[in-house]
Protein backbone atom coordinates (compact mmCIF):
# COMPACT_ATOMS: atom_id res chain seq x y z
CA UNK A 1 0.00 0.00 0.00
CA UNK A 2 1.74 3.13 -1.12
CA UNK A 3 -0.98 5.58 -2.05
CA UNK A 4 -2.58 7.02 1.08
CA UNK A 5 -5.37 9.57 0.86
CA UNK A 6 -4.94 12.72 2.94
CA UNK A 7 -7.42 11.59 5.60
CA UNK A 8 -5.53 8.31 5.87
CA UNK A 9 -2.31 10.04 7.05
CA UNK A 10 -2.53 8.81 10.66
CA UNK A 11 -2.95 5.32 9.30
CA UNK A 12 0.07 5.76 7.06
CA UNK A 13 2.16 6.69 10.09
CA UNK A 14 1.21 3.61 12.07
CA UNK A 15 1.60 1.25 9.15
CA UNK A 16 4.88 2.95 8.33
CA UNK A 17 6.19 2.38 11.84
CA UNK A 18 5.25 -1.30 11.77
CA UNK A 19 6.96 -1.66 8.44
CA UNK A 20 10.08 0.12 9.77
CA UNK A 21 10.26 -2.18 12.77
CA UNK A 22 10.02 -5.26 10.60
CA UNK A 23 12.69 -3.93 8.28
CA UNK A 24 15.02 -3.35 11.25
CA UNK A 25 14.35 -6.86 12.54
CA UNK A 26 15.20 -8.35 9.18
CA UNK A 27 18.68 -6.79 9.50
CA UNK A 28 19.18 -7.92 13.07
CA UNK A 29 18.20 -11.49 13.98
CA UNK A 30 18.40 -10.88 17.72
CA UNK A 31 15.77 -8.21 17.85
CA UNK A 32 12.33 -9.38 18.85
CA UNK A 33 9.85 -6.83 17.61
CA UNK A 34 7.02 -9.04 16.51
CA UNK A 35 4.82 -8.25 19.52
CA UNK A 36 5.29 -4.56 19.05
CA UNK A 37 4.67 -4.76 15.33
CA UNK A 38 1.56 -6.80 15.88
CA UNK A 39 0.29 -4.24 18.34
CA UNK A 40 0.81 -1.56 15.69
CA UNK A 41 -1.03 -3.70 13.15
CA UNK A 42 -3.94 -4.03 15.52
CA UNK A 43 -3.95 -0.29 16.10
CA UNK A 44 -3.91 0.32 12.36
CA UNK A 45 -6.85 -2.06 11.92
CA UNK A 46 -8.89 -0.24 14.50
CA UNK A 47 -8.05 3.12 12.97
CA UNK A 48 -8.93 1.92 9.47
CA UNK A 49 -12.31 0.72 10.69
CA UNK A 50 -12.89 4.01 12.45
CA UNK A 51 -11.94 6.06 9.40
CA UNK A 52 -14.13 4.04 7.06
CA UNK A 53 -17.06 3.83 9.44
CA UNK A 54 -17.80 7.52 9.09
CA UNK A 55 -16.75 8.62 5.65
CA UNK A 56 -17.87 12.07 4.58
CA UNK A 57 -19.16 12.46 1.01
CA UNK A 58 -15.95 14.24 0.04
CA UNK A 59 -13.84 11.37 1.38
CA UNK A 60 -16.00 9.00 -0.64
CA UNK A 61 -15.17 11.06 -3.73
CA UNK A 62 -11.50 10.69 -2.92
CA UNK A 63 -11.83 6.93 -2.51
CA UNK A 64 -13.87 6.69 -5.72
CA UNK A 65 -10.96 8.38 -7.51
CA UNK A 66 -8.22 6.39 -5.77
CA UNK A 67 -5.54 5.48 -8.33
CA UNK A 68 -5.17 1.95 -6.95
CA UNK A 69 -8.85 1.14 -7.28
CA UNK A 70 -9.57 -1.60 -9.79
CA UNK A 71 -10.46 -0.03 -13.12
CA UNK A 72 -12.56 -1.20 -16.05
CA UNK A 73 -9.65 -3.10 -17.59
CA UNK A 74 -9.09 -5.05 -14.36
CA UNK A 75 -12.72 -6.09 -14.22
CA UNK A 76 -12.76 -7.11 -17.86
CA UNK A 77 -9.59 -9.18 -17.47
CA UNK A 78 -10.78 -10.91 -14.32
CA UNK A 79 -14.46 -11.44 -14.96
CA UNK A 80 -14.73 -11.98 -18.69
CA UNK A 81 -13.30 -14.60 -21.02
CA UNK A 82 -12.40 -14.21 -24.68
CA UNK A 83 -12.60 -10.43 -24.43
CA UNK A 84 -12.37 -9.18 -27.98
CA UNK A 85 -12.00 -5.42 -28.09
CA UNK A 86 -13.80 -3.78 -30.98
CA UNK A 87 -12.53 -0.38 -31.98
CA UNK A 88 -13.70 2.77 -33.66
CA UNK A 89 -16.81 4.76 -34.33
CA UNK A 90 -16.63 4.28 -38.15
CA UNK A 91 -16.81 8.04 -38.48
CA UNK A 92 -13.61 9.57 -37.24
CA UNK A 93 -11.46 7.63 -34.78
CA UNK A 94 -11.17 5.18 -31.94
CA UNK A 95 -11.25 6.45 -28.38
CA UNK A 96 -9.09 4.68 -25.81
CA UNK A 97 -10.99 6.25 -22.93
CA UNK A 98 -13.76 3.78 -23.72
CA UNK A 99 -13.10 0.04 -23.74
CA UNK A 100 -15.63 -2.17 -25.42
CA UNK A 101 -16.12 -5.39 -27.25
CA UNK A 102 -17.42 -8.91 -27.26
CA UNK A 103 -16.71 -11.20 -24.34
CA UNK A 104 -18.06 -14.14 -22.43
CA UNK A 105 -19.43 -13.67 -18.97
CA UNK A 106 -19.96 -17.12 -17.40
CA UNK A 107 -19.74 -18.59 -20.91
CA UNK A 108 -22.55 -16.35 -22.03
CA UNK A 109 -21.65 -13.99 -24.89
CA UNK A 110 -22.17 -10.35 -23.98
CA UNK A 111 -21.10 -6.89 -25.04
CA UNK A 112 -19.08 -5.09 -22.39
CA UNK A 113 -18.42 -1.33 -22.48
CA UNK A 114 -16.71 0.88 -19.92
CA UNK A 115 -14.62 3.94 -19.20
CA UNK A 116 -10.96 3.19 -18.51
CA UNK A 117 -8.82 5.71 -16.64
CA UNK A 118 -5.42 4.03 -16.87
CA UNK A 119 -3.08 3.07 -14.03
CA UNK A 120 0.20 4.90 -14.71
CA UNK A 121 1.24 8.09 -16.45
CA UNK A 122 1.55 6.51 -19.85
CA UNK A 123 -1.73 4.61 -19.76
CA UNK A 124 -3.54 7.56 -18.20
CA UNK A 125 -2.47 9.77 -21.06
CA UNK A 126 -3.47 7.13 -23.57
CA UNK A 127 -6.86 6.73 -21.87
CA UNK A 128 -7.25 10.49 -21.48
CA UNK A 129 -7.92 9.89 -17.77
CA UNK A 130 -11.17 8.19 -18.62
CA UNK A 131 -12.63 11.29 -20.25
CA UNK A 132 -14.30 10.14 -23.45
CA UNK A 133 -14.52 12.09 -26.66
CA UNK A 134 -17.48 11.88 -29.05
CA UNK A 135 -15.82 8.88 -30.72
CA UNK A 136 -16.04 6.93 -27.47
CA UNK A 137 -19.77 7.46 -27.18
CA UNK A 138 -20.28 6.72 -30.85
CA UNK A 139 -18.30 3.50 -30.49
CA UNK A 140 -20.57 2.59 -27.58
CA UNK A 141 -23.66 3.31 -29.71
CA UNK A 142 -22.30 1.05 -32.42
CA UNK A 143 -21.62 -1.75 -29.95
CA UNK A 144 -25.05 -1.42 -28.36
CA UNK A 145 -26.65 -1.64 -31.80
CA UNK A 146 -24.69 -4.78 -32.49
CA UNK A 147 -25.71 -6.25 -29.14
CA UNK A 148 -29.34 -5.48 -29.93
CA UNK A 149 -29.08 -7.12 -33.34
CA UNK A 150 -27.52 -10.33 -32.02
CA UNK A 151 -29.51 -10.39 -28.77
CA UNK A 152 -26.52 -10.05 -26.48
CA UNK A 153 -26.90 -8.45 -23.05
CA UNK A 154 -24.92 -5.26 -22.53
CA UNK A 155 -22.81 -4.69 -19.43
CA UNK A 156 -21.44 -1.20 -18.81
CA UNK A 157 -18.83 -0.17 -16.24
CA UNK A 158 -18.92 3.50 -15.34
CA UNK A 159 -15.79 5.31 -14.19
CA UNK A 160 -15.22 8.77 -15.59
CA UNK A 161 -14.58 12.28 -14.30
CA UNK A 162 -16.84 13.40 -17.16
CA UNK A 163 -16.85 13.78 -20.92
CA UNK A 164 -13.72 15.47 -22.28
CA UNK A 165 -14.04 19.25 -22.48
CA UNK A 166 -11.78 19.80 -25.49
CA UNK A 167 -11.89 21.85 -28.65
CA UNK A 168 -12.01 18.93 -31.05
CA UNK A 169 -14.53 17.09 -28.89
CA UNK A 170 -16.87 20.07 -29.09
CA UNK A 171 -16.35 20.51 -32.82
CA UNK A 172 -17.19 16.88 -33.44
CA UNK A 173 -20.39 17.13 -31.41
CA UNK A 174 -19.73 15.98 -27.87
CA UNK A 175 -23.26 16.83 -26.79
CA UNK A 176 -24.87 15.09 -29.73
CA UNK A 177 -22.74 12.01 -29.14
CA UNK A 178 -23.77 11.82 -25.47
CA UNK A 179 -27.42 12.43 -26.33
CA UNK A 180 -27.36 9.63 -28.91
CA UNK A 181 -25.68 7.21 -26.52
CA UNK A 182 -28.30 7.88 -23.84
CA UNK A 183 -30.98 7.50 -26.50
CA UNK A 184 -29.47 4.19 -27.61
CA UNK A 185 -29.37 2.92 -24.02
CA UNK A 186 -33.12 3.51 -23.90
CA UNK A 187 -33.79 1.84 -27.25
CA UNK A 188 -32.12 -1.54 -27.13
CA UNK A 189 -34.26 -4.62 -26.61
CA UNK A 190 -31.63 -6.54 -24.65
CA UNK A 191 -30.81 -6.42 -20.94
CA UNK A 192 -28.59 -3.47 -20.05
CA UNK A 193 -26.96 -3.63 -16.65
CA UNK A 194 -24.48 -1.16 -15.29
CA UNK A 195 -22.10 -0.75 -12.37
CA UNK A 196 -20.58 2.51 -11.20
CA UNK A 197 -17.15 1.22 -10.18
CA UNK A 198 -15.62 4.60 -9.30
CA UNK A 199 -16.65 8.01 -10.49
CA UNK A 200 -19.92 8.63 -12.30
CA UNK A 201 -19.17 12.03 -13.78
CA UNK A 202 -22.24 13.80 -15.16
CA UNK A 203 -23.40 13.39 -18.75
CA UNK A 204 -20.38 11.29 -19.57
CA UNK A 205 -21.71 8.70 -17.12
CA UNK A 206 -25.40 8.98 -18.05
CA UNK A 207 -24.51 7.90 -21.58
CA UNK A 208 -23.60 4.43 -20.22
CA UNK A 209 -25.58 4.22 -16.99
CA UNK A 210 -29.09 4.56 -18.42
CA UNK A 211 -29.67 0.89 -17.68
CA UNK A 212 -32.34 -1.57 -16.57
CA UNK A 213 -30.38 -2.09 -13.38
CA UNK A 214 -27.72 0.13 -11.86
CA UNK A 215 -25.47 -1.09 -9.09
CA UNK A 216 -22.94 1.11 -7.33
CA UNK A 217 -19.87 0.10 -5.40
CA UNK A 218 -20.08 1.11 -1.75
CA UNK A 219 -17.66 4.02 -2.09
CA UNK A 220 -18.48 5.08 -5.64
CA UNK A 221 -20.14 8.38 -6.49
CA UNK A 222 -22.45 9.59 -9.27
CA UNK A 223 -23.12 13.26 -9.69
CA UNK A 224 -24.39 16.01 -11.96
CA UNK A 225 -21.15 17.93 -11.45
CA UNK A 226 -17.87 17.41 -9.61
CA UNK A 227 -17.83 18.82 -6.06
CA UNK A 228 -15.02 21.16 -7.12
CA UNK A 229 -17.02 22.43 -10.10
CA UNK A 230 -20.14 22.89 -8.01
CA UNK A 231 -18.17 24.70 -5.30
CA UNK A 232 -16.61 27.11 -7.74
CA UNK A 233 -20.00 27.98 -9.23
CA UNK A 234 -22.23 28.12 -6.15
CA UNK A 235 -19.69 29.00 -3.45
CA UNK A 236 -17.41 30.91 -5.85
CA UNK A 237 -14.60 28.95 -4.24
CA UNK A 238 -13.37 25.56 -5.52
CA UNK A 239 -11.96 24.83 -2.05
CA UNK A 240 -15.49 24.43 -0.73
CA UNK A 241 -15.68 21.00 -2.34
CA UNK A 242 -16.42 19.33 0.99
CA UNK A 243 -19.57 21.37 1.44
CA UNK A 244 -20.52 20.82 -2.19
CA UNK A 245 -19.99 17.06 -1.95
CA UNK A 246 -22.25 17.06 1.08
CA UNK A 247 -24.99 19.08 -0.60
CA UNK A 248 -24.97 17.18 -3.89
CA UNK A 249 -25.97 13.83 -2.35
CA UNK A 250 -23.68 11.93 -4.63
CA UNK A 251 -22.84 8.85 -2.56
CA UNK A 252 -24.08 5.39 -3.45
CA UNK A 253 -26.08 5.38 -0.22
CA UNK A 254 -27.96 8.58 -1.09
CA UNK A 255 -28.51 7.45 -4.66
CA UNK A 256 -30.07 4.23 -3.44
CA UNK A 257 -32.47 6.30 -1.35
CA UNK A 258 -33.26 8.49 -4.34
CA UNK A 259 -34.02 5.45 -6.49
CA UNK A 260 -31.22 6.16 -8.95
CA UNK A 261 -29.15 3.15 -7.86
CA UNK A 262 -30.87 -0.20 -7.46
CA UNK A 263 -28.29 -1.82 -5.22
CA UNK A 264 -24.99 -1.25 -3.45
CA UNK A 265 -22.08 -3.65 -3.80
CA UNK A 266 -20.09 -3.77 -0.53
CA UNK A 267 -16.36 -3.05 -0.68
CA UNK A 268 -13.74 -4.66 1.55
CA UNK A 269 -12.78 -2.77 4.71
CA UNK A 270 -10.70 0.20 3.70
CA UNK A 271 -12.08 0.43 0.18
CA UNK A 272 -11.75 -1.43 -3.11
CA UNK A 273 -8.06 -0.53 -3.36
CA UNK A 274 -7.33 -2.58 -0.21
CA UNK A 275 -9.00 -5.67 -1.62
CA UNK A 276 -8.99 -5.54 -5.36
CA UNK A 277 -9.71 -9.21 -6.04
CA UNK A 278 -12.49 -9.37 -3.53
CA UNK A 279 -14.10 -6.23 -4.99
CA UNK A 280 -13.89 -7.60 -8.50
CA UNK A 281 -15.50 -10.86 -7.38
CA UNK A 282 -18.33 -8.97 -5.67
CA UNK A 283 -18.98 -6.99 -8.84
CA UNK A 284 -19.08 -10.27 -10.77
CA UNK A 285 -21.66 -11.65 -8.37
CA UNK A 286 -23.79 -8.53 -8.66
CA UNK A 287 -23.65 -8.59 -12.47
CA UNK A 288 -24.68 -12.24 -12.48
CA UNK A 289 -27.65 -11.52 -10.23
CA UNK A 290 -28.77 -8.48 -12.24
CA UNK A 291 -28.59 -10.39 -15.52
CA UNK A 292 -30.49 -13.29 -14.02
CA UNK A 293 -33.34 -11.02 -13.00
CA UNK A 294 -33.70 -9.91 -16.61
CA UNK A 295 -33.39 -13.36 -18.17
CA UNK A 296 -36.26 -14.25 -20.42
CA UNK A 297 -37.81 -10.77 -20.33
CA UNK A 298 -39.11 -9.88 -23.79
CA UNK A 299 -37.35 -7.05 -25.68
CA UNK A 300 -40.40 -4.77 -25.64
CA UNK A 301 -40.79 -5.24 -21.92
CA UNK A 302 -37.11 -4.54 -21.30
CA UNK A 303 -37.44 -1.24 -23.13
CA UNK A 304 -40.70 -0.35 -21.40
CA UNK A 305 -39.30 -1.19 -17.97
CA UNK A 306 -36.19 0.88 -18.54
CA UNK A 307 -38.20 3.89 -19.69
CA UNK A 308 -40.61 3.63 -16.81
CA UNK A 309 -37.75 3.42 -14.33
CA UNK A 310 -36.43 6.78 -15.51
CA UNK A 311 -39.85 8.40 -15.79
CA UNK A 312 -40.46 7.44 -12.15
CA UNK A 313 -37.11 8.61 -10.79
CA UNK A 314 -37.30 11.57 -8.47
CA UNK A 315 -40.99 11.24 -7.72
CA UNK A 316 -40.36 11.15 -3.99
CA UNK A 317 -37.06 12.90 -3.41
CA UNK A 318 -35.04 11.65 -0.46
CA UNK A 319 -38.21 10.44 1.22
CA UNK A 320 -38.46 7.60 -1.30
Amino acid at each position, binding site marked *: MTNYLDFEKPLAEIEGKAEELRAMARGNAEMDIEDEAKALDAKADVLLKELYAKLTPWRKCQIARHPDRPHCKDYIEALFAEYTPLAGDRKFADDDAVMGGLARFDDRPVVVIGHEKGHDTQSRLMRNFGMARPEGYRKAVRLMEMADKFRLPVITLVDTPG*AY*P*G*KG*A*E*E*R*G*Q*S*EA*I*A*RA*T*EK*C*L*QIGVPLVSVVIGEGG*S*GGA*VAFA*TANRLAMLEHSV*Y*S*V*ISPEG*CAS*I*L*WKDAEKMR*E*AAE*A*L*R*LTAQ*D*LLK*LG*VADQIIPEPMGGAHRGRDKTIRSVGTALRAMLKELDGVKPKKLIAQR*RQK*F*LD*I*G*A*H*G*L*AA
Partner: protein
Amino acid sequence: MNWITNYVRPRINSIFSRREIPENLWVKCDECGTMLFHREMSDNLNVCSNCGHHMVITPRERFHGLFDGGIFSEVDVPEPVADPLHFRDQKKYPDRLKGAQKATGQKEAMLVATGEIGRTPVVAAAQDFGFMAGSMGMYVGNAIIAAAQKAIELKRPLILFSAAGGARMQEGILSLMQMPRTTVAVQMLKEAGLPYIVVLTHPTTGGVTASYAMLGDIQIAEPGALICFAGPRVIEQTIREKLPEGFQRAEYLLEHGMLDRVTDRRKMREELVSIVRMLMHLPPPVAGDLPAPGPTDTAPATPEQPEADKTA
Protein backbone atom coordinates in the same frame (compact mmCIF):
# COMPACT_ATOMS: atom_id res chain seq x y z
CA MET B 1 -68.68 66.48 -15.75
CA ASN B 2 -69.94 63.71 -13.59
CA TRP B 3 -68.47 61.09 -11.34
CA ILE B 4 -67.60 58.88 -14.28
CA THR B 5 -65.29 61.39 -15.91
CA ASN B 6 -63.97 62.75 -12.64
CA TYR B 7 -63.50 59.61 -10.73
CA VAL B 8 -63.91 56.37 -12.68
CA ARG B 9 -62.03 57.29 -15.80
CA PRO B 10 -58.90 58.56 -14.04
CA ARG B 11 -58.88 55.41 -11.96
CA ILE B 12 -59.11 53.23 -15.03
CA ASN B 13 -56.48 55.28 -16.80
CA SER B 14 -54.14 55.07 -13.89
CA ILE B 15 -54.48 51.30 -13.77
CA PHE B 16 -53.74 50.96 -17.46
CA SER B 17 -51.05 53.57 -17.72
CA ARG B 18 -49.21 52.02 -14.81
CA ARG B 19 -49.17 48.79 -16.75
CA GLU B 20 -48.24 50.33 -20.03
CA ILE B 21 -45.11 52.13 -18.97
CA PRO B 22 -42.28 49.69 -18.65
CA GLU B 23 -39.54 50.43 -16.17
CA ASN B 24 -37.21 51.25 -18.96
CA LEU B 25 -38.42 52.83 -22.12
CA TRP B 26 -35.05 52.45 -23.75
CA VAL B 27 -32.98 49.32 -23.98
CA LYS B 28 -29.35 49.29 -24.91
CA CYS B 29 -28.23 46.61 -27.35
CA ASP B 30 -25.66 44.35 -25.64
CA GLU B 31 -23.70 44.14 -28.85
CA CYS B 32 -23.58 47.50 -30.62
CA GLY B 33 -24.80 49.78 -27.84
CA THR B 34 -27.61 51.32 -29.88
CA MET B 35 -30.47 52.62 -27.74
CA LEU B 36 -33.67 50.93 -28.79
CA PHE B 37 -37.17 52.06 -27.89
CA HIS B 38 -39.04 49.36 -25.98
CA ARG B 39 -41.90 49.22 -28.46
CA GLU B 40 -39.50 48.83 -31.31
CA MET B 41 -37.69 46.13 -29.35
CA SER B 42 -40.81 44.07 -28.70
CA ASP B 43 -42.08 44.46 -32.25
CA ASN B 44 -38.71 43.27 -33.39
CA LEU B 45 -38.77 40.27 -30.98
CA ASN B 46 -35.84 41.71 -29.02
CA VAL B 47 -33.58 41.72 -32.05
CA CYS B 48 -31.50 44.86 -32.40
CA SER B 49 -32.73 46.80 -35.41
CA ASN B 50 -29.26 48.21 -35.91
CA CYS B 51 -26.94 45.18 -35.75
CA GLY B 52 -29.33 42.23 -35.73
CA HIS B 53 -28.08 41.00 -32.38
CA HIS B 54 -30.54 38.59 -30.75
CA MET B 55 -31.20 39.56 -27.16
CA VAL B 56 -32.87 37.49 -24.48
CA ILE B 57 -36.59 36.99 -24.93
CA THR B 58 -38.85 35.48 -22.29
CA PRO B 59 -40.98 32.46 -23.19
CA ARG B 60 -44.11 34.56 -22.85
CA GLU B 61 -42.84 37.29 -25.18
CA ARG B 62 -41.73 34.63 -27.60
CA PHE B 63 -45.06 32.85 -27.60
CA HIS B 64 -46.81 36.16 -27.97
CA GLY B 65 -44.95 36.69 -31.21
CA LEU B 66 -45.12 33.08 -32.29
CA PHE B 67 -48.75 32.06 -31.96
CA ASP B 68 -51.46 33.50 -34.20
CA GLY B 69 -52.80 36.65 -32.63
CA GLY B 70 -50.61 36.01 -29.63
CA ILE B 71 -53.12 33.45 -28.38
CA PHE B 72 -52.00 30.29 -26.68
CA SER B 73 -53.17 28.14 -23.84
CA GLU B 74 -50.73 26.94 -21.25
CA VAL B 75 -50.25 23.24 -20.63
CA ASP B 76 -50.21 22.18 -17.00
CA VAL B 77 -46.95 20.74 -15.78
CA PRO B 78 -47.03 18.20 -12.94
CA GLU B 79 -45.42 19.71 -9.88
CA PRO B 80 -42.27 17.86 -8.79
CA VAL B 81 -41.18 17.28 -5.19
CA ALA B 82 -39.91 20.59 -3.86
CA ASP B 83 -36.24 20.75 -2.89
CA PRO B 84 -35.73 16.97 -3.08
CA LEU B 85 -32.20 17.03 -1.63
CA HIS B 86 -32.70 19.76 0.98
CA PHE B 87 -29.93 21.51 -0.89
CA ARG B 88 -28.12 24.38 0.64
CA ASP B 89 -25.10 26.30 -0.60
CA GLN B 90 -24.64 29.87 0.55
CA LYS B 91 -28.39 30.13 0.18
CA LYS B 92 -31.12 27.56 0.59
CA TYR B 93 -32.45 26.22 -2.68
CA PRO B 94 -36.10 27.14 -1.88
CA ASP B 95 -34.94 30.72 -1.27
CA ARG B 96 -33.14 30.81 -4.60
CA LEU B 97 -36.26 29.47 -6.28
CA LYS B 98 -38.45 32.07 -4.61
CA GLY B 99 -36.02 34.78 -5.64
CA ALA B 100 -36.18 33.64 -9.25
CA GLN B 101 -39.97 33.45 -9.14
CA LYS B 102 -40.15 36.96 -7.80
CA ALA B 103 -37.67 38.34 -10.31
CA THR B 104 -39.34 36.74 -13.34
CA GLY B 105 -42.97 36.44 -12.28
CA GLN B 106 -42.79 32.87 -13.55
CA LYS B 107 -43.18 29.61 -11.73
CA GLU B 108 -40.26 27.81 -13.26
CA ALA B 109 -37.81 27.71 -16.13
CA MET B 110 -40.08 26.31 -18.84
CA LEU B 111 -43.38 27.32 -20.37
CA VAL B 112 -45.46 24.85 -22.40
CA ALA B 113 -48.36 25.93 -24.56
CA THR B 114 -50.68 24.82 -27.32
CA GLY B 115 -51.96 27.03 -30.08
CA GLU B 116 -51.74 27.71 -33.78
CA ILE B 117 -48.94 29.22 -35.77
CA GLY B 118 -49.92 30.25 -39.28
CA ARG B 119 -53.13 28.27 -38.71
CA THR B 120 -51.03 25.19 -37.94
CA PRO B 121 -51.76 23.53 -34.62
CA VAL B 122 -48.63 22.88 -32.57
CA VAL B 123 -47.40 22.36 -29.06
CA ALA B 124 -44.52 24.62 -28.08
CA ALA B 125 -42.18 24.66 -25.11
CA ALA B 126 -39.73 27.43 -24.28
CA GLN B 127 -37.02 27.54 -21.69
CA ASP B 128 -36.52 30.70 -19.69
CA PHE B 129 -32.87 31.68 -19.36
CA GLY B 130 -33.88 34.43 -16.95
CA PHE B 131 -35.08 31.84 -14.46
CA MET B 132 -32.03 30.39 -12.70
CA ALA B 133 -30.19 30.32 -16.03
CA GLY B 134 -32.94 28.16 -17.49
CA SER B 135 -31.44 25.26 -15.63
CA MET B 136 -32.90 21.82 -16.14
CA GLY B 137 -34.33 20.35 -12.99
CA MET B 138 -37.26 18.08 -12.38
CA TYR B 139 -39.79 20.77 -13.33
CA VAL B 140 -38.19 21.27 -16.73
CA GLY B 141 -38.10 17.49 -17.19
CA ASN B 142 -41.76 17.23 -16.27
CA ALA B 143 -42.55 20.12 -18.62
CA ILE B 144 -40.91 18.37 -21.56
CA ILE B 145 -42.68 15.12 -20.77
CA ALA B 146 -45.99 17.00 -20.46
CA ALA B 147 -45.30 18.77 -23.77
CA ALA B 148 -44.58 15.47 -25.52
CA GLN B 149 -47.68 13.84 -24.05
CA LYS B 150 -49.85 16.78 -25.08
CA ALA B 151 -48.41 16.68 -28.59
CA ILE B 152 -49.14 12.96 -28.83
CA GLU B 153 -52.64 13.39 -27.42
CA LEU B 154 -53.44 16.15 -29.92
CA LYS B 155 -51.35 14.60 -32.74
CA ARG B 156 -49.39 17.81 -33.13
CA PRO B 157 -45.72 18.57 -33.67
CA LEU B 158 -43.61 19.82 -30.78
CA ILE B 159 -41.45 22.88 -31.18
CA LEU B 160 -38.98 23.38 -28.37
CA PHE B 161 -36.94 26.53 -27.77
CA SER B 162 -33.94 25.65 -25.62
CA ALA B 163 -31.93 28.04 -23.44
CA ALA B 164 -30.01 26.84 -20.42
CA GLY B 165 -26.80 26.97 -18.52
CA GLY B 166 -27.17 23.22 -18.04
CA ALA B 167 -28.54 21.03 -15.29
CA ARG B 168 -29.78 22.49 -12.01
CA MET B 169 -27.08 21.63 -9.51
CA GLN B 170 -29.42 22.20 -6.58
CA GLU B 171 -31.30 19.08 -7.59
CA GLY B 172 -28.11 17.04 -7.83
CA ILE B 173 -28.41 13.65 -9.48
CA LEU B 174 -32.12 14.19 -10.03
CA SER B 175 -31.34 17.02 -12.43
CA LEU B 176 -28.91 14.73 -14.24
CA MET B 177 -31.67 12.13 -14.49
CA GLN B 178 -33.63 14.58 -16.63
CA MET B 179 -31.28 13.67 -19.46
CA PRO B 180 -32.69 10.13 -19.80
CA ARG B 181 -36.18 11.30 -18.78
CA THR B 182 -36.44 13.92 -21.50
CA THR B 183 -34.91 11.48 -23.96
CA VAL B 184 -37.79 9.11 -23.22
CA ALA B 185 -40.18 11.99 -24.00
CA VAL B 186 -38.49 12.60 -27.35
CA GLN B 187 -38.66 8.89 -28.15
CA MET B 188 -42.38 8.78 -27.43
CA LEU B 189 -42.90 11.65 -29.87
CA LYS B 190 -40.81 9.97 -32.52
CA GLU B 191 -42.66 6.70 -32.13
CA ALA B 192 -45.91 8.59 -32.61
CA GLY B 193 -44.46 9.86 -35.90
CA LEU B 194 -44.72 13.49 -34.85
CA PRO B 195 -42.12 16.11 -35.73
CA TYR B 196 -39.88 17.33 -32.94
CA ILE B 197 -38.22 20.58 -33.86
CA VAL B 198 -35.59 22.17 -31.68
CA VAL B 199 -34.76 25.84 -31.86
CA LEU B 200 -31.52 26.38 -29.98
CA THR B 201 -31.25 29.85 -28.53
CA HIS B 202 -28.49 31.64 -26.65
CA PRO B 203 -27.10 29.94 -24.66
CA THR B 204 -27.78 26.21 -24.73
CA THR B 205 -25.16 24.26 -22.83
CA GLY B 206 -24.29 21.24 -20.71
CA GLY B 207 -26.74 18.44 -20.02
CA VAL B 208 -29.48 20.23 -21.96
CA THR B 209 -27.45 20.19 -25.17
CA ALA B 210 -26.43 16.62 -24.39
CA SER B 211 -30.02 15.42 -24.28
CA TYR B 212 -33.28 16.78 -25.70
CA ALA B 213 -31.78 19.85 -27.37
CA MET B 214 -29.70 17.74 -29.76
CA LEU B 215 -32.29 15.09 -30.59
CA GLY B 216 -34.60 17.07 -32.86
CA ASP B 217 -35.73 15.88 -36.26
CA ILE B 218 -34.73 19.36 -37.32
CA GLN B 219 -32.21 21.50 -35.48
CA ILE B 220 -32.45 25.25 -35.98
CA ALA B 221 -30.44 27.83 -34.08
CA GLU B 222 -30.73 31.57 -33.64
CA PRO B 223 -27.79 33.60 -34.96
CA GLY B 224 -24.87 33.95 -32.58
CA ALA B 225 -26.26 31.50 -30.03
CA LEU B 226 -23.66 29.77 -27.88
CA ILE B 227 -24.32 26.03 -28.16
CA CYS B 228 -22.00 23.62 -26.42
CA PHE B 229 -21.49 20.82 -23.95
CA ALA B 230 -18.53 22.27 -22.06
CA GLY B 231 -18.39 26.06 -21.96
CA PRO B 232 -15.52 28.01 -23.53
CA ARG B 233 -14.01 28.91 -20.16
CA VAL B 234 -13.79 25.28 -19.07
CA ILE B 235 -12.18 24.32 -22.36
CA GLU B 236 -9.64 27.15 -22.21
CA GLN B 237 -8.69 26.02 -18.72
CA THR B 238 -8.32 22.43 -19.89
CA ILE B 239 -6.36 22.90 -23.09
CA ARG B 240 -4.66 26.14 -22.06
CA GLU B 241 -5.02 27.90 -25.35
CA LYS B 242 -7.22 30.59 -26.78
CA LEU B 243 -10.24 29.41 -28.68
CA PRO B 244 -10.91 30.64 -32.20
CA GLU B 245 -13.32 33.49 -32.87
CA GLY B 246 -16.91 32.34 -33.03
CA PHE B 247 -16.12 28.97 -31.43
CA GLN B 248 -19.28 27.15 -30.33
CA ARG B 249 -21.50 29.78 -31.88
CA ALA B 250 -24.49 28.76 -34.01
CA GLU B 251 -22.72 29.56 -37.29
CA TYR B 252 -19.69 27.51 -36.20
CA LEU B 253 -21.88 24.52 -35.39
CA LEU B 254 -23.66 24.87 -38.71
CA GLU B 255 -20.31 24.74 -40.45
CA HIS B 256 -19.36 21.65 -38.46
CA GLY B 257 -22.50 19.81 -39.45
CA MET B 258 -24.22 19.92 -36.07
CA LEU B 259 -27.25 21.98 -37.15
CA ASP B 260 -29.71 22.10 -40.04
CA ARG B 261 -30.12 25.85 -40.11
CA VAL B 262 -29.34 29.16 -38.49
CA THR B 263 -32.38 31.41 -38.76
CA ASP B 264 -33.09 35.00 -37.75
CA ARG B 265 -35.70 35.20 -35.01
CA ARG B 266 -37.79 37.55 -37.13
CA LYS B 267 -38.05 34.89 -39.85
CA MET B 268 -38.37 31.95 -37.46
CA ARG B 269 -42.15 31.83 -37.31
CA GLU B 270 -42.56 31.72 -41.06
CA GLU B 271 -39.92 29.06 -41.36
CA LEU B 272 -41.39 26.90 -38.62
CA VAL B 273 -44.83 27.09 -40.20
CA SER B 274 -43.42 26.03 -43.54
CA ILE B 275 -41.38 23.13 -42.14
CA VAL B 276 -44.09 21.84 -39.83
CA ARG B 277 -46.70 21.94 -42.57
CA MET B 278 -44.49 19.97 -44.92
CA LEU B 279 -43.70 17.36 -42.28
CA MET B 280 -47.37 17.06 -41.37
CA HIS B 281 -48.50 16.78 -45.03
CA LEU B 282 -50.56 19.96 -44.81
CA PRO B 283 -51.18 22.28 -47.77
CA PRO B 284 -48.80 25.22 -48.20
CA PRO B 285 -49.25 28.09 -45.76
CA VAL B 286 -51.22 31.16 -46.79
CA ALA B 287 -48.75 33.88 -47.63
CA GLY B 288 -48.74 37.04 -45.58
CA ASP B 289 -50.07 37.83 -42.16
CA LEU B 290 -53.32 36.26 -41.17
CA PRO B 291 -55.81 38.34 -39.23
CA ALA B 292 -55.86 37.63 -35.55
CA PRO B 293 -58.61 35.20 -34.65
CA GLY B 294 -59.85 37.40 -31.84
CA PRO B 295 -59.30 40.69 -30.06
CA THR B 296 -56.38 39.99 -27.79
CA ASP B 297 -53.49 42.23 -28.55
CA THR B 298 -53.85 45.14 -26.17
CA ALA B 299 -50.92 47.03 -27.62
CA PRO B 300 -52.01 49.27 -30.48
CA ALA B 301 -50.61 48.27 -33.82
CA THR B 302 -47.68 50.47 -34.73
CA PRO B 303 -46.56 50.73 -38.31
CA GLU B 304 -43.01 49.61 -37.78
CA GLN B 305 -42.83 47.12 -40.58
CA PRO B 306 -40.45 49.35 -42.58
CA GLU B 307 -37.99 49.26 -39.69
CA ALA B 308 -37.74 45.52 -39.95
CA ASP B 309 -37.28 45.73 -43.70
CA LYS B 310 -34.38 48.12 -43.34
CA THR B 311 -32.37 45.67 -41.32
CA ALA B 312 -33.38 42.47 -43.05
